[in-house]
């Protein structure tokens, strides 16, 4: 019972909702890149250079590793470029370019590829890159040091570092609306709060990142900061500076929401996000590092599979 025509035969279902990894990463990149634009206007070619080198070397490292491990080229899905972009967004504009190249190597190769590529990375790759550089070359990533040659019409101090070193009195130097529109020292893509929030809201509406993580992250930061502030106003800053400076916003919308290193169930997402937020403020207020976002998220990445065990019982499970 065969006739001549040959048909495509495959398994159900025969429709797909049209989503794809490429679509997802490109959307995240577009949303994230909007937050980079103010820094490019501010620092000019220096910022653009860091972003370009970061994205391109991230792609090159992935191609080289695909070649070395004899696996199909996976750069087409945009994940390497996204890691490069997010990594660049954390760096100050004046960072030496060799450091960027090393950073993307660590992010792409050690952060992602050696675990088996996209989807298998236990930590956010960009954060692994940044954390290792932060430990190895702390001076080169210190905003106040690296950007010492720039002079703009706002206070040339990293707000989060000022808070740590000079106490909450320095918060008066940084009005909330200045922080929101990007008038602060910081990473290339992490200063302009309003654009980060806009991009993040766009991604949440499109379903590319989960609101549970972002919202609970910000809530965790705010509540912990309020509690610290209430306990000793002379020593700890309030929630506004914690929310709008440092890596808080980029962490909440772009870093903590990385798919493979974050939980997928509803309650675990809330716990994970809140954990990131709480740890961030704890590290900032009690720890020795200036900004806690990077280490807080890496720590919660580590706990993510464990938290994700809290899941609803499957139907009919006895």
């Amino acid at each position, binding site marked *: 019972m065969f*006739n001549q025509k040959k048909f*495509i035969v495959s398994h159900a279902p025969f429709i*797909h909702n049209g989503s*794809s990894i490429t679509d*997802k990463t490109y959307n995240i990149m577009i949303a994230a890149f909007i937050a980079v634009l103010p820094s490019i206007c501010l620092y000019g070619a220096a910022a653009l250079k860091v972003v370009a080198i970061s994205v391109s070397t991230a792609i090159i490292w992935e191609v080289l590793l695909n070649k070395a491990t004899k696996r199909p080229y996976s750069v087409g899905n945009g994940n390497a470029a996204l890691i490069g972009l997010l990594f660049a967004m954390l760096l100050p504009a004046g960072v030496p370019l060799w450091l960027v190249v090393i950073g993307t190597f660590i992010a792409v190769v050690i952060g992602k590829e050696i675990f088996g590529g996209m989807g298998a990375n236990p930590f956010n790759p960009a954060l692994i890159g940044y954390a290792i550089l932060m430990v190895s070359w702390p001076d080169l990533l210190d905003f106040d040091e690296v950007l010492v040659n720039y002079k703009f019409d706002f206070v040339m101090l990293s707000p989060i570092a000022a808070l740590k070193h000079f106490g909450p009195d320095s918060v008066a130097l940084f009005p909330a609306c200045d922080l929101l529109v990007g008038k602060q020292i910081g990473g290339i893509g992490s200063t302009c709060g309003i654009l980060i929030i806009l991009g993040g809201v766009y991604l949440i509406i*499109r379903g590319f990142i989960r609101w549970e993580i972002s919202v609970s992250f910000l809530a965790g930061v705010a509540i912990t900061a309020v509690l610290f502030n209430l306990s000793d106003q002379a020593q700890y800053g309030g929630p506004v500076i914690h929310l709008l400076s440092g890596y808080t916003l980029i962490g909440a919308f772009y870093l903590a929401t990385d798919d493979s290193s974050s939980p997928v169930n509803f309650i675990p997402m809330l716990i994970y996000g809140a954990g990131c937020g709480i740890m961030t403020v704890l590290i900032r207020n009690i720890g020795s590092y200036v900004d806690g976002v990077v280490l807080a998220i890496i720590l919660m990445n580590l706990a993510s599979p464990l938290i994700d065990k809290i*899941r609803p019982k499957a*139907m009919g499970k006895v």
Partner: protein
Amino acid sequence: MINKPFIGFLKPKIEYETAGPTTSAPREISSSGHVVLFAERPPANRDSLVLNTGDKVNTGQKLSVFKDSDHYVIATVTGAISDISSYTGDQGKKFTSITIKSEKKEEVDDEFGGKCKEPAIENAKEFLGCIAGMPELDKLMDPEKPIKTIVVNGMDPDIMVSANQYSVRYDCAGVRKGIEILKKMSGVDNIILIIPPTLKRETQLEKIETQIIDTKYPAASPSLIAKDILKQVVPAGKSFEDVGLFFIGAESVAAIAHAYEKGAVPVKKIVTVIQKDLSRTVVSAVIGTPISNILSAVGVTVNEKDRVVIGGLMTGRAVYSLDYPVQPDTDAVLVQDMEDISDISDNACINCGECIRVCPANVPVNLLVRFLEAGEYEEAAYNYDLYSCIECGLCSYVCTAKIPIFQYIKLAKYEHALILAAEAEAEAAEAGEAENV
């Protein structure tokens, strides 16, 4: 293709086709040439078969196929058997295919009418096992697993399909009579008809007790009907009979009514033809009609590299040939243009969690798929809820990485059944050895 909406953080909403008031009654497809019937297992050898090529058969005649089994098929046309051979279907399941060349003059067999004046479960089991929807009526007779509730499904198992819904809409009297007969023959008083909200008027006119169901896929899946409407969750790995439930389609119920009314076994099946532009035509065809007949009658051209599917978009089975016949449980025939066929990939799971949010059975799909990809079927079955899956296909539909998750799940269930069978065999052999010693 039903695409993800721009606002994508909500769950996808796939609606069942609910036959609106403008749809017309099914179009009759005249049977021409031959029909092909499938019997449950392959012929062991020529001598094991009761049937021979050249045997004359009448429409509605019960044909016992194997000498050592009471399995039967119902001849759906009048004519002579022209071929008996082995056919391999999905997952290597083998059947005996019986081809009957039809003659112009139709003679309706009177064995059923003569023997079965009064509806009874015994004669229904004897003659009505191959009517539209293939109801497993013998389950109503199992003394070890008494049935407490019969659910008549007026919804169809897949989206864009209407067979049961058509029966309720255009043959509501038949459904009502069928329910009465079922009540009488099974002795089960609790019979519920499940319908979409659009069919409320028809069932009210016939005064049938109904339960309205959500029209969002997969609410009409038997497991979810049991959970949401009957508040009775079936434990994973158990069957519906184990908890006293019996599911039957409205089309089958109506067919049972007609069988006793006319004294002849019904031989037709309602089939939804879903064309390339997703427009739908509902036809009524004799069981065993090759789908090529149906497609040409409806006017669908099928080209090389298109996809032809028996069943609906979410749960159907693609076939290799247009000679495949309409079976008693074929609710739809779907033709997809090669342009519309979405690709699948060998990407790894990126843990985005879309499947988790869409799964109606709360299966941890993101973890399950990792074990399935690695072939760890036992681990998947015992720790990652493989058997809680109700096989709706939504996980594959939403998968960002385009992993064929549903295929992995079906394969895993098949492979795991083989593992269990091999284990049972080894255990039995061991027990036998121990006895010998």
